[in-house]
């Protein structure tokens, strides 16, 4: 084994470790590019709606907690403290929802009559793909997805993305939801 060979091996040893860290640098950049919380470009509706919620036949509806624990709890108002933002069905209207039901909101939830929505609302005044509520730059935004009868924010028809605040009312079809930001 010549000295040149030894130097090559030594070089290769440091190269090996160095390349692992180069990989780590790229990978962490990829991770943080996703996790960053600074304000960002609005999502493409198609990008959010098409594959992500297509395979989501069931709504993330939760029965009213008071009804689920009979006797154990009085009907509590306001709704219990929650970690995640959620929608409370204030008025079910003629829809399949029932008053007091809650819907937990994830980073993006689509609402509509079609089965591929995150929240399925059976209501003849609700469009197939009615509305989208998504998180952007730490804010929950409400967007109308070209519904026939419109989406309403505190009684006003939504034309552009509108930020939701604690207690805001969201009207979809004949149903009215109340938005709660949760405790986080």
């Amino acid at each position, binding site marked *: 084994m010549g000295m040149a060979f030894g130097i090559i091996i030594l070089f290769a040893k440091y190269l090996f470790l160095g390349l692992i860290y180069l990989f780590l640098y790229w990978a962490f950049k*990829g991770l943080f590019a996703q996790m960053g919380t600074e304000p960002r470009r609005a*999502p493409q509706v198609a990008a959010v709606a098409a594959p*992500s919620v297509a*395979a989501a036949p069931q709504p993330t509806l939760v029965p009213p907690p008071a009804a689920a624990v009979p006797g154990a709890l009085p009907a509590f108002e306001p709704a219990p403290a929650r970690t995640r933002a959620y929608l409370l069905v204030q008025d079910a209207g003629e829809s399949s929802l029932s008053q007091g039901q809650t819907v937990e909101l994830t*980073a*993006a939830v689509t609402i509509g009559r079609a089965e591929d929505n995150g929240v399925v609302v059976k209501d003849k005044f609700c469009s197939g793909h009615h509305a989208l509520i998504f*998180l952007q730059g730490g804010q929950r935004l409400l967007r109308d997805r070209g519904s026939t009868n419109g989406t309403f924010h505190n009684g006003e028809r939504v034309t552009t993305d509108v930020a939701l605040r604690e207690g805001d009312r969201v009207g979809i079809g004949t149903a009215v939801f109340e938005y709660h930001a949760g405790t986080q």
Partner: protein
Amino acid sequence: MRRTIISPGRRSELSLLIFSAFVSVLGMALVCVAMQQMPLRALRVTAVSAGFILAAMLLQVGGKSRDRLLLPCVSLLSGIGIIVLWRVNPDLASRQILWMLLGLSAMAGVYLLVDDVRDLAPYKYTAGAVALGLLIITMVAGRESHGARLWLGVEGYFMFQPVELAKILMSLFLAGYVAEKGDIIRASMRPGVFLAGLKHMGPLLLVVLFFLGAFVLQKDLGAAVLFLGLFVAVSYLATGRKTYALLSLILFVGGMVGAYYLFGHVRQRFDIWINPWADPTGNGYQILQGLFALGSGGLTGVGLGHGFPGTIPAAETDMVYAVIGEEMGLVGTLSVLLLYVLVVARSFDLGMRANNQFASLLATCLGAVFALQALVIIGGVLRLIPLTGITMPFISYGGTSIVVNFIALGLLLVISRDAVPEEAET
């Protein structure tokens, strides 16, 4: 606009996979040269790298967006695993390559067969019952090795470690249970209605306590710590309150103290941890050899293939981190730790982006399982906590562990397919 800037953060999955393959081959070549083997044997590791690239391409079928970071990270972890195993025992490493290929097939199978991860939610009680059943059968009819009954199957034909499978089954059960009862648990957490909370948290606690008892009796302390840790994580996820997590943490410590006084083998492990020098050639031998290896590794290691892994008992499984420390040094051990951080952070991130509660909880639970396994075994080898036998995900030798970890990876990829795509927030 985005396309015009060459952003390293947006490096494609394929290029990262090819890069990790290159790094793996370089490491293998170094090992082969040092062990005076044909450098061409180094090319065997490319079977795993090629498997990852092939799997990534197969998972592209259907064109749905999915996670792009998990596969490259696990690919590099697996590559480092094969390199280190080859160093310890080339035959085991060759078998590990086959296990990884089997695991990759299982991962692809899960990804292609599971349409929506929520389809698995109704089977939560089945999953929990199967996990319990497997453990009971193992306790009664399992094969003993190293003083612990951990194996099930027919010797010589088919053997597996039910504990490994129980990790995923328990994650499914816990995620399913909390997704269903989480609201009730949270709602009943007000003062005065504590009992209602207990009513719904209670079954969870009972199941976990049963598992703990089983593991402690089986002398599988690593699994006991893992499942207690998972319970702490889930109780925080279910309630969102730090007090509850603290409560289960107190339970955790209490359980450990109780086990110390009740069981001789727990006390022994603990005493070795406090003072391995009390019996340096007997009970303390393994941990001390590990510490010597780590010490001789120094900052950048003695070089791949130049250490003495033969002196460390269980170098291919429990003590594999010490081998990495000896040959790749502090720099190498930290890189492995950072790769785990990437996998775990990505799982938690997926949990936050998932479009339903079950998927969200499952991703977080699987991430927690990876994190706890890595922490428990790395902490044990470094003598930060008592050493308990547990596998290091994707690195330790072991067929069941490898295949099960890849199935977990497959589930994470399924969740990522239905989560809010990355592009949505970029």
